């Protein structure tokens, strides 16, 4: 089975010819910076949700953002995808620094996300939900699509094929036609991931992809995330509470606490960092 024509085909950063990257190229690709957050501060009235945080995300890596409740993780994701606008600091994505970005601009520039609480169209089928992720890629306007002839039809077939690859990838063929509202939570999370994948994102933001799942579902989800990263080269930033999962999945971890960055590094480094241990286990202030 062929890989979906995908991932970096339209990305300007792709310079190496061919798809198969030798180990050396891979390393070069890894060092390239996809997104950087510099001295970002976000306040809501008097509350500082994020204060003066800097970190970066490299192309092709799995980057985890962890921290205790209220540490500012979700706010950070919302800043990255343009939902919140930080009062201070800069965010550059693919080398372009931006001041203010709307979520739809973020989406069209290749950032997709899933939500902490599943946000699907519950009355629509799995297939339609994932198809909705393709809407940004649809070129034909409303009239064409209503007529459903010629180019519009061809376009839909091409998108449908792409979506079928995603359904196959996520092993959800058996629920293709079922309304998602009736599905168990673990499967809804998978559909949501599918919808985000449908955008062929370069950067995928996952907000607690494994919250509320049992062990088996977590293992499945971890496998999908790893495969997604290795097969399609998608860069992934994820928030997760399950430390075991984070340590297994992530290449690098940034740790937040009370809106501040307290550690940044490989899982092993972070795990042995005293600040992190204190933040998680609590310490007398």
């Amino acid at each position, binding site marked *: 089975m062929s890989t979906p024509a995908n991932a970096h085909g339209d990305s300007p950063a792709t310079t190496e010819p061919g798809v198969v990257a030798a180990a050396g190229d891979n390393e070069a690709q890894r060092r390239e910076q996809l997104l950087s957050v510099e001295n970002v501060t976000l306040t809501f009235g008097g509350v500082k949700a994020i204060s003066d945080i800097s970190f970066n995300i490299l192309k092709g890596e799995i980057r985890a953002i962890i921290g205790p409740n209220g540490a500012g993780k979700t706010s950070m994701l919302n800043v990255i995808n343009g939902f919140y606008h930080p009062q201070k600091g800069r965010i550059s994505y693919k080398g372009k620094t931006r001041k203010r970005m709307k979520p739809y601009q973020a989406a069209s520039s290749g950032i997709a996300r899933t939500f902490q609480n599943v946000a699907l169209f519950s009355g629509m089928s799995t297939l339609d939900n994932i198809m909705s992720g393709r809407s940004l890629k649809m070129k034909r306007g409303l009239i064409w699509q209503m007529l459903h002839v010629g180019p519009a039809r061809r376009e839909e077939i091409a998108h449908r094929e792409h979506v079928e690859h995603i359904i196959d990838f996520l092993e959800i*063929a*058996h629920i293709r036609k079922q309304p998602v509202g009736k599905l168990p939570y673990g499967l809804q999370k998978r559909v949501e991931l599918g919808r985000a994948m449908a955008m062929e994102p370069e950067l995928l933001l996952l907000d607690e992809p494994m919250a509320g799942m049992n062990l088996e579902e977590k293992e499945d989800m971890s496998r999908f995330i790893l495969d997604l990263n290795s097969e399609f080269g998608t860069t992934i930033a994820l928030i997760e509470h399950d430390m075991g999962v984070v340590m297994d999945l992530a290449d690098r971890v940034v740790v937040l606490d009370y809106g501040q960055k307290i550690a940044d590094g490989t899982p092993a480094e972070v795990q042995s960092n005293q600040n992190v241990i204190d933040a998680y286990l609590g310490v007398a202030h």
Partner: protein
Amino acid sequence: MNKPVNEQLLEIGGQAQSLPSVPHYLLRNAERYRDKIAMRHKDLGIWREWTWADLLVEVRRFSLGLAQLGLQPGDKVAIIGNNRPRLYWTFAAVQAIGGVPVPVYADSVAEEMGYVLDHAGIRFAVCQDQEQVDKVLSLQDKLVGLEYLIYDEDRGLRAYDQNQVLAFDYVQTLGDQAVERDVGAVASWCDAIDNIKPDELCVMLYTSGTTGRPKGVMLSHRNLILTCLNANRFDSLSDREETIAYLPLAWVGDHVFSYGQSYTAGYCVCCPESPDTVTSDRREIAPSYFFAPPRVFENLLTSITVNMEDAGRVKRKMFDYFINVANKHGEKILNGERVSPIGSLMYGLGRIFVYGPLKNRLGMSKVRVAYTAGEAIGPDIFRFYRSLGINLKQLYGQTEASVYITAQPDGQIDADTVGTPSLDVEIQIADNGEVMYRSPGVFLGYYKNDEATQSTKTADGWVHTGDAGFIDDAGHLRIIDRSKDVGKLNDGGLFPPKYIENKLKFFSDIKEVVAFGDGRDYVSVFVNIDLTAVANWAERNNIVYGSYQELAAHPDVYEMVHAHVKKVNADLAAEPRVASAQIKRFLVLHKELDADDGELTRTLKVRRNFIVERYGELIDALYSDKTEQFVSTTVTFEDGRSGKIEATVQIQDVEGFNHHAVHSAAEVSA
């Protein structure tokens, strides 16, 4: 491009005219049924098709590729995965160069799989996906002969060692290159097929083994071909049939239905999109020939019942009414007996309103012949399907017989029998009541296990089935139980465990039962509830539960099971032969019996001895006056890790019936 097939028929076995080997049939079909669809597979939501001519090309490319990799005649090739076209092609591709395919249960845990792969001495393994490749690689240290792993689905596998782990496509390209280098390669491939002798080893199937280690059953081309030809003749199966392949590849049934019979008859085999989509895929395909173990029919009926209970009042009324009509007239109509004009009119209406749509839902609207085997099927379940007009029949078979021992001829159906001897099969009942048979399908022997071969197969070709049974007046075989399992209670009463278990399992709330009683004072049972059915019942009755364990221990569930056991006791009391085997105590197990924990075989039969060992304390409690017992069980996950489940299991007493009391009650009500 194809070499003309040698259409000269060889006479093997003295009666049927047949070709000498399965690959011969591939060559024949590619010519005779050139443009007929041989195989379908649903991929990316679309059914893809291969004609017999396409199939030959695919098989030949792969086969030549295998030869390029150095596969020699006699080499064993493991096939591990779900029902996918490429895995079916592998059978023929390996056989064409004289190799021996060894299908392995895809869901076996690594250790179990290791035993089979090691015992068979496999050289290549063809795996479906990363999961199976990983499993085999984890066993690599123990598998000395293993050289190449070939995979079908490439996801996650590109980073693997390309010198050892190869893509199916890549191997086919190797085959193409061989043809490019030497145009004669195709012709010599066909010549090699012509040299296959009917008595050569065709396939090795490991029995799932209710006791002890799996044994490798060796079947020859002659075994497989003659049995399949006879089976095709018995049910007049032709190249027009369609069937869906969804049962484990390693199981002899699937090998015969989806491979042997398909090649010999030339009919089409459809592979579902995934194991989870079988029901909807079957509906799209509407097979004409269908096989399923009783469990599948039970599950389907459970889901119908559950759905009907959730349906609106009008629909439910209509369903109940017409199912009653079907109960009265359906079987008679199917058997071609006379029915009153009103009856046939009502049945006709039922067909329009209920049976037709229902059969369509089940994907059985075109079924001409459906079989169930492997275990006893509940008479009510069996009759239900037949009354809808589905020609469901029973057969009795074994891996050692290439499946067919007996089968029910059309129109001679009885829920309690397994039919008359299949074509060319002889049956005799040994002095101890054991069923024995002799047929052209009788296996060559167990691989590397002469001892077992000699104790199973006599010098003149009779095979011990291990099942006790008798032939009734109509010439139909009835199976009582596994002869090893039938025991005696301390008061001398007969204890047929299967018989009791099946009676209980016929309730849709009960999934599995294990009965004890041999050498005991009374009969007691373990019960496993059926989660689908009981969960739905719980929902309707506002019963809140957090887990399987909690639901199983719920007082209302106990009350329900209690009622079922009581009903079974009443049934047993009505039969003098087994009246003393009434159930005195029962418990509902806190976990589902699972093949991964070794409690069931891969074909989901109960492994009695293992359960006796594992749940010794629960059994002791059943034979004491305790009302509850604490138990801690280790469970194994599919990846080999293990965890623990602990529970305090309740035990209940059930009242029995007096044989005469039931009798007189029946008379009064009559």
